[in-house]
């Protein structure tokens, strides 16, 4: 249909969208660029945009001085562990609610979601006390459990919505063809559930990786993940812009790449089905 939208207006819109996009992305871009500068160039006035001597020395220094790899490893263990543990617990729960719904299913689900809406700080003291009593303070295991618990409602919810999309007719058809329960789960349900589980894992890994309330409050040295590592740059190292940038870039790079794949799950996972 020949609408009055001219090429000129279209390209104007495109240019505007690009401008806004670049403006929003700029702090990240600037951080990445600064990480390749020397300290002197990082605070040069006027600021240097691309015309500086590219160097990798900041990355080497960050690793050397603060043992970046150890924090990275902690982040991987804590985010990965809590996600896997959460999925193991949530799959049966979501499965039961999606395929064998009862009168109370909706209430149970809503009750689970409501825990996600409580501020974490409300249970800071109880959890802190438990951690001291159980000797879990500053251990990766303790953090895995806490992050699993805070993300569990989202995991259950996402899996539930994915499982609900699996049509029941397919199960009936499989049964009619004489599939046993084991075959039904193995050959019919699992292949259809895998994409949903994968998306859930992805989003929750990202959420756990970026979680910065419990990781800051329950760790000190041994179990500190990247969020705490960056927080330690607060002062006075933060004034060394190039090193701060290098450390920041290393902390966010893996998640920026994963985040690219998870943009669709973001809405599904964090709006609890309030948006359709």
């Amino acid at each position: 249909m020949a609408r009055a939208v001219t090429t000129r207006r279209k390209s104007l819109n495109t240019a505007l969208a690009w401008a806004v996009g670049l403006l929003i992305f700029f702090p990240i871009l600037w951080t990445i660029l600064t990480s390749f500068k020397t300290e002197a160039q990082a605070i040069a006035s006027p600021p240097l945009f691309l015309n500086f001597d590219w160097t990798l020395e900041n990355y080497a220094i960050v690793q050397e001085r603060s043992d970046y790899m150890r924090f990275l490893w902690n982040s991987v263990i804590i985010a990965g562990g809590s996600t896997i543990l959460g999925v193991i617990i949530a799959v049966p729960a979501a499965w039961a609610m999606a395929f064998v719904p009862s009168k109370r299913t909706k209430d149970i689900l809503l009750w689970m979601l409501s825990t996600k809406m409580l501020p974490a700080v409300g249970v800071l003291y109880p959890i802190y006390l438990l951690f001291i009593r159980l000797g879990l303070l500053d251990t990766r295991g303790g953090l895995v459990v806490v992050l699993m618990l805070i993300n569990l409602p989202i995991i259950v919810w996402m899996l539930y919505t994915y499982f609900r999309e699996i049509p029941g007719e397919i199960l009936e058809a499989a049964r009619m063809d004489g599939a046993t329960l084991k075959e039904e789960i193995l050959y019919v349900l699992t292949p259809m559930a895998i994409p949903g589980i994968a998306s859930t894992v992805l989003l929750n890994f990202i959420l756990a990786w970026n979680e910065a309330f419990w990781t800051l409050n329950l760790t000190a040295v041994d179990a500190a993940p990247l969020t705490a590592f960056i927080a330690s740059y607060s002062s006075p190292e933060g004034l060394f812009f190039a090193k701060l940038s290098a450390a920041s870039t290393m902390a966010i790079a893996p998640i920026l790449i994963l985040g690219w794949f998870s943009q669709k799950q973001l809405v599904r996972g964090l709006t609890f089905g309030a948006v359709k």
Partner: protein
Amino acid sequence: MWGQGVVRILVIAPFFVMPTVSALVWKNMFMDPVNGLLAHLWRFFGAEPISWLSEASMTSIIMIVSWQWLPFATLILLTAIQSLDSEQLEAAEMDGAPVLKRFYHIILPHLSRAITIVILIQTIFLLSIFAEIFVTTGGAFGTRTLTYLIFQRVLESQNVGLGSAGGVYAIILANIVAIFLMRIVGKNLDA
């Protein structure tokens, strides 16, 4: 639109930056009164640079947190606006409705639900921001939120009673908002 996918990634990216990183990058590289980028910008226009986090502390933290959560709101509103029937807009255009009126009478009502949800969800999540304050002002300059106050009472001064009482307040406060959100979620579950 040319490069739509790329622009979307650019806009969404801040959401995937961990809170401590975005807070520190903003604090040091943008809001530093001497070497920060904003200070350069201010001087470029002949203005006196602001020491953001001490003089305009609340504004600064609001800026940082908005930047982080902008992608989330954008994604929800984008999803909502994509479900708008373009024929409605075309019909209005043919009837001679100007751009502003089309926005006010068609697009805005269509988005009202999504806007409500964005406000509710973000309020709930942002009531408990912590890391942004922890690494920037440390609760100084009038930026001590309820979350931060409880953290200070429980972990720094070991005043457990006050901390726990604060926790109850925090939960009540969040519940006031959560009730509305839960209602919408519950209704959607039925449908």
